[in-house]
């Protein structure tokens, strides 16, 4: 059974920030790893706190398994939060931290012992059970927080930027563990993050947010390949953008007329003469030495920078007063680099790889 948010809004007027969370409608499926992604101040943490019960929505409803939990206080909701800085209780040992929720439920000694051990084992920290919270590392504290939140089997686990306090190497390692943990326990994980790579890697689906608004919900692949908004496209991965006006000379062929030339596009319901953004991912573009056989979607420029990164080379190409990023994969070992800084090149792409979006300035 899913977690449903319907028409959820939150307005802060007291602190004068004037923040508004616009109505959000979301259905998060059971067992799904769902990410709320966006820059700071976009409202993603507010959504998480509303679900956790730490904030009351201005309007709208939260349904967990069909039951309305909007007005329930946090301790009556069958979901737990992993806090950004873990919020482990400093006065309790690791064992007692994990046992906290079980003790409140007044379970028997042997059952508490058994379930805490099981939870500690799940996150591989059985040997830390008698330590104090100031005797463990950040990565270990993260595991304790996970064990504490999972021990009494909630229906949903909320994670508030859980990896942001870890050093980069550990962060990447913990990503894989989190994903594996979600599938192992079969619970719904809802994670807030501002790290697009983290969201791409972890989430089954994600919601991209900006300014209190949910811009797009979808799988990593949908969000990357089919963004519905230039902001989403720019926030996830890198983009090259060409702004122009749509025009058509026959019912089948449409062109984007821009200062860099006319480019063929697939029509998808945009009206003629509308100002549009043509968005191209760097890895979907090709560099050519000569014009050769390609006739359309061609821009002439010169390489002003290149960076060899092992699996790929990143080129920066200057075209008039614009620059384009192009990533080319290094497919053959010991192949001599064919292009150098200063070389004249042609940029090209397949018509179907271009993303066409409404220009926000129009």
């Amino acid at each position: 059974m899913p977690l449903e948010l319907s028409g959820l809004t939150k307005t802060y007027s007291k602190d004068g920030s004037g923040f508004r969370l616009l109505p959000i409608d979301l259905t998060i499926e059971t067992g799904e790893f769902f990410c709320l992604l966006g820059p700071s101040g976009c409202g993603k943490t507010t959504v998480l706190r509303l679900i956790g019960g730490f904030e009351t929505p201005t309007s709208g409803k939260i349904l967990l398994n069909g039951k309305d939990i909007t007005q329930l206080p946090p301790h009556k909701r069958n979901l737990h939060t992993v806090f950004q800085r873990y919020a482990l209780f400093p006065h309790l040992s690791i064992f007692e931290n994990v046992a906290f929720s079980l003790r409140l439920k007044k379970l028997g000694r042997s059952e508490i012992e058994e379930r805490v051990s099981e939870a500690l084992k799940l996150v591989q920290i059985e040997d830390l059970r008698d330590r104090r919270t100031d005797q463990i590392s950040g990565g270990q504290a993260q595991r304790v927080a996970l064990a504490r939140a999972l021990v009494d089997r909630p229906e949903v686990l909320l994670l508030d930027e859980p990896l942001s306090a870890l050093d980069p190497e550990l962060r990447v390692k913990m990503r894989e563990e989190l994903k594996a943990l979600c599938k192992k326990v079969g619970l719904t994980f809802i994670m807030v993050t501002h790290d697009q790579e983290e969201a791409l890697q972890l989430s089954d689906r994600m919601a991209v947010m900006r300014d209190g608004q949910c811009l797009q919900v979808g799988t990593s692949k949908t969000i990357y390949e089919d963004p519905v908004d230039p902001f989403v496209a720019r926030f996830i991965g890198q983009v090259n953008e060409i702004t122009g006006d749509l025009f058509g000379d026959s019912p089948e062929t449409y062109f984007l007329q821009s200062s860099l030339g006319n480019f063929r596009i697939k029509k998808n319901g945009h009206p003629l003469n509308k100002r549009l953004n043509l968005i191209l991912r760097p890895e979907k573009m090709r560099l050519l030495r000569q014009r050769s056989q390609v006739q359309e979607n061609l821009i002439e420029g010169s390489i002003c920078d290149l960076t060899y990164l092992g699996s790929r080379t990143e080129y920066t190409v200057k075209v008039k007063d614009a620059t384009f990023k192009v990533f080319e994969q290094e497919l053959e070992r010991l192949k001599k680099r064919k292009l150098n800084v200063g070389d004249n090149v042609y940029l090209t792409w397949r018509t179907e790889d271009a993303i066409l979006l409404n220009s926000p300035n129009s």
Partner: protein
Amino acid sequence: MDSKATTSKQIPVTALVFIGWLFLMTFLPFLIILGMSFLERTPLGTISFHFNFNNYARSFQYIYLKVLFKTVWLALIATLSCLAVGFPVAYHLARSKGWMKQLGLVLLFIPFWTNFILRIYGLVSLLGNHGLINQILLSLGIITSPLEILYTRTGVYVGLLYNYLPFLVVPIFSALEKLDPSLREAGFDLGANRFQVFWRVVIPNIKEGLFVGSLFVFIPMLGEYVIPDLLGGAKEAFLGNVMVSQFFVMQDWPFGSAMAGLLSALMLMTLWIQTRWSKTSGLRGGSLNA
């Protein structure tokens, strides 16, 4: 490099001045008192340099022990009253925001811009039979005869509470301020109600602050002299009052010194218990430095 290493081990001059002052004005007089407590009073009221333990033996006589116990008891009750009144104050101050918090702290300390003795005389004129409180209550017809507050134990409690409250509120306030708000949220999140969050999360994490605050008021209360003298009348004498009368009325400096030595030992013992306790309970001495 070398000179830097040596200077870092030396005590700075400014600190030396202070340490010297402390030695001269606190430690040295204390040593004199301690030395005197082993001497003898001559019938003329002068001091004879005859080393003995008689003054300490006399301190353990019933009438003096009774004063000691009463002092400890009254200080204890007053400390607990301070906790009962001060904790909610600290709690609300710590949770309020912006100018409310500033205002609360200022209000807490404004009385301290007035001299201590003046404040006590202020209380005398408030609490007396013809004082403001009785006047108002009488004129409103709530009481028919004045409430006996001044020169009773209640008067002493009122004075102690009024004067020591901020010293208890501040350490508790700073302990609450330092308490990570997400700990309370984590408590709620894990299924604790308000009551359980308070007793299982808040209190255990500020108990050092509670203890330090209590000692901040309990120890000086043990040595209190002016408040019982001016607000309690003769019946409610503290050990401090008995000591003063030994020095200035009975002219028995050695015996007065022995009582002072005993009281100091009691205070040091309280401090020692506190340090022992905070070590064994595995708490870091954070709130002491606050």
